[in-house]
Structure formats: C-alpha cells, structure tokens
C-alpha cells in the first residue's frame, strides 16, 4: 500500500503536509521547485490528475518547474469505490500537456528504479502507481528505468503485445500461453508514455505486422491511441486496443474489473489469435 508515513517519520523536515487540497499541493510544489527543491507530490491519481490539472499545466509544465507528481492508487486500484475514485483518463490528459513527462512503472522494481531516475531527471513528470500488491515483471532491480525507452521483455515475430503499468505482467502472461500455442509475440513494457518511444512502435509494426495494446485506462486517448498515432501515420498494420470501455467502469475488485473488460491473459490470447486468423492453432 502506498503511504508516505515512513518517509515523513524518517525525514520530518523534508515532508510538507498540505491537507485535502490538490490544487494547493501542486502550486506549493511548484514554488518549492522554483526555489531549487525537488518536490515529489503524492496524492491519489484520481484527484491529482483531475482536480489539480490546471496547476499541473501552468505551474509545472508551462513554468518548467521540476515537480514529480506521483499519482498513487491509480487506475481501478480503488475498484469498489466507483468512477470518482478511478483514474482512467489520466494518461490521455497528461500526455496532451506539452512539457510534462508521463510514466507508469510495471512493478516494484520498475518503481524503485524510476524513483531513483526521477530524482536526477530535470522536468515535470506525472507518474501513475497502483495501490495493491501485484505480481512482478522483473526478478530484481537490474533492468534500469530509462525514460522514453520501451523495454522488450520477450522477442517474437508474429505480433507485438504492448502494456503499460500493471498490464505489463498480463501481456507477459498472454505471450507465454500464446507461445505454447505456437504464436510468438514480442512484449513491450511501454513504461514511458512521454517522452514516447516512437521507434519501438515502428519496429514492432514493421517487424511483427500486428499490434495489441492493453491498458488500465479508458480506450480513448491512452496507450492504444498513442501507438495508433504512430501506426496509422508511419506504418499501417492491424491493431487492437484493449482497455476500459467508454463508460463509468463497473465496480468490484481490481481483478474483477480487469476480467470484465478483457484485461486478462486469456482474452489477449483470444484477441491475438483471431486477429492473426489462427483461432484453431493449438500446440
């Protein structure tokens, strides 16, 4: 569970409590950054990415302040709490702001590496992190977090599966079961949405011919849209965008919501096979 309590206890002078005031927290952070500090703002992603979006646009991105915005409990982490507490528009909104970097780490190793990178990385960033424990993608902290560089987790030539944040583990599992059926997929951890690794997408389109994106985000304006912007303009290939339908998302546990919208290894397998016309293929 994401909490700043341990940090606040260890470094009381470096911890600023702002109360329930998302606009204020971002403005204050911008002021701290304007005076040479490197503030990390922690607030639930649903509020941080919506309530304070104008402060993010003007006080952070436009004013070029070095503020690290950490949206915690992102996506459908608060599954049962409904649309007010889901953050499923944040990728679309954040990536449309010039000068704001956007990243969704895939697991605890990615988070640790990202935070280390962020501390030395000059510029405003929006980071979305989940709330609940998730299976890891990596076994250690060995894979560095390089801003703007997708990580190829598995190579393959039949299709490319792209995930971001918590869906990376799911596309990795989908690739495993597809491999058992003889379908070799490339898997990309697209942990950075901005700066954007256009080359990785282009290579995927050129070399594998099919792309399936999977995101814990509304299907408009997110990862799938960002990939499609490259694909349609530079290398048109068939694509599928798997994500949350454009509706107030169903409520329940995060895994129930994932199942409901097809963010599961089995559904990704089925979608991929039907796209490739290989429904009958079983190893």
């Amino acid at each position, binding site marked *: 569970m994401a909490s700043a309590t341990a940090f606040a206890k260890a470094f009381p002078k470096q911890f600023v409590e702002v109360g329930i005031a998302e*606009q204020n927290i971002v*403005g204050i952070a*911008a*002021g*701290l950054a304007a*005076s040479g500090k490197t503030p990390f703002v922690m607030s639930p992603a649903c509020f941080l990415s919506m309530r304070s979006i*104008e*402060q993010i646009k003007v*006080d952070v991105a436009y004013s070029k302040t070095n503020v690290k915005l950490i949206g915690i409990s992102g996506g459908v982490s608060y599954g049962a709490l409904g649309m007010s507490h889901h953050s499923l528009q944040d990728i679309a909104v954040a990536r449309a702001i010039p000068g704001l970097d956007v990243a969704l780490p895939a697991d605890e190793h990615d988070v640790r590496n990202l935070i280390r990178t962020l501390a030395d990385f000059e510029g405003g960033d929006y980071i979305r992190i989940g709330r609940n424990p998730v299976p890891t993608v990596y076994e250690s902290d060995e894979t560095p977090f390089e801003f703007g560089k997708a990580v190829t987790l598995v190579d393959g030539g039949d299709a490319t599966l792209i995930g971001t944040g918590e869906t990376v583990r799911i596309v990795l599992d989908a690739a495993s079961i597809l491999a058992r059926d003889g379908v070799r997929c490339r898997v990309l951890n697209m942990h950075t949405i901005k700066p954007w690794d256009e080359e990785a997408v282009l290579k995927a389109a050129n070399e594998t011919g099919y792309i399936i994106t999977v995101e814990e985000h509304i299907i408009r304006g997110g990862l799938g849209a960002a990939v499609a912007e490259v694909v349609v303009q530079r290398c048109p290939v068939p694509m599928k965008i798997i994500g949350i339908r454009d509706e107030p998302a169903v409520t329940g546990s995060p895994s129930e919501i994932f199942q409901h919208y097809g963010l599961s290894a089995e559904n990704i397998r089925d979608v991929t096979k039907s796209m490739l016309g290989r429904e009958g293929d079983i190893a």
Partner: protein
Amino acid sequence: MVDAVPPKGDFLRRKASQIRMDLLQMIYHAKAGHTGSSLSDTDILTALYYGGVLRVQANNPKWPLRDRFIRSKGHAVEAFYCILADLGFFPKCELETYSQYGSRLIGHPNNKVPGVDMNTGALGHGLSVGVGIALSAKLDANAFRVFVLMGDGEQAEGSVWEAAMAAAHYRLDNLIGIIDWNGLQISGRTDEVMRTDPLDGKWRSFGWHVELAMGTTSMK
C-alpha cells in the same frame, strides 16, 4: 489605515505616471491589453519596485536571495513589463513587440522574460506558489520575502483560500499577499458578481495579519 505613499511620494507619483504613459503606448501599439486592470495596480507595482520594498537586481535577475514577486493577477501584465524594462531587466525597445507574433512579451507573465519568476494567467494559482517559495526560504533559513499580487475578482477562486490556510498553518511571515481591491472585474462590479465582503475579515479569520492601504489592501 496606512499611507501607501512613502516620503519620496513625489518621485513615486511621477514614476507611476510615466509607467501609465508607457503602458498606454504599449497597449495602443499592440491594439491589445488589459488597460483598466493595469492602470489599477500601477501604484502598487511602483511602490514595490521603486519604493525600496522589493530587493531585486536587474543585472542579476536570478539572484538566489532576491525577493520574489508572483503576479497571480496575471492578466494585467502591461505595467509589470513596463517597469521591468524601465529598470533594465530587458531593453525598453522590446516593449514594442508586446503581443506580437513570436514575442516573449505575451499577454500574461512568462518566465522567459527576465524578472518574471512564474508563468501566471490562470487565476487562483499564485498564492500557492508563493507558499511553496516561502516554505523553501524557511527550510533554507534564507531571509528573502515573497510578494503575491492578487485581484479582488480572483478572491472567488477556492484555491486562494487553500493557500491562505496553508500560509497561516506554516506561519509564513515571509509571505506578503497584496489584493488590488479595485471593486471591478471583467464582468462587472466585484460585489455584485460575487460578494467578498468583508474581505479583510475573511483574511483575518484565516490567520493573516491584514493592513488596509489607500485604495488597496495589503496583507502579511
């Protein structure tokens, strides 16, 4: 009530008149600008920049120990630019480019311009930024002060009050909020658009030390 015009009142009055002439010329030349709002706070800016209040250095705009000035009332930028040019932060001839294609002198304060710390223009942001800068000064035991100029129409923005609360909570006696209490905003008389009265009482109740000045309210 305190007199807003210090002993060197004649000099400041003449300076304010000159700045008003400059900004009218600039607005006339550009055929664009917030004339009323700029004329309204010229006295405040003149007092800050020429009255020995703000400690800034035109030849060293990023001087780390400078006093900070955040123009939260970002729409009225003209007097601000005229003063910065007059003090030598940038060449005065550049004022002719105001609002022109590609000019850095855009219609709201922009920190590409020497002497401007933060980009403003969306109301209700400046005081929060000021709180952050003032907190930073306290953390580093720096003695500089932070001045934030707001409009009276801006007082309707809820985020102003989030920042007011935080400033008192952190006892930021190095933060000075100034309200250009001119009774007007773009859509009409401020008290008719959204009543803020008693404005000084509201700020006092938020834990601020309030002083009323001639035609304006300045708080600390």
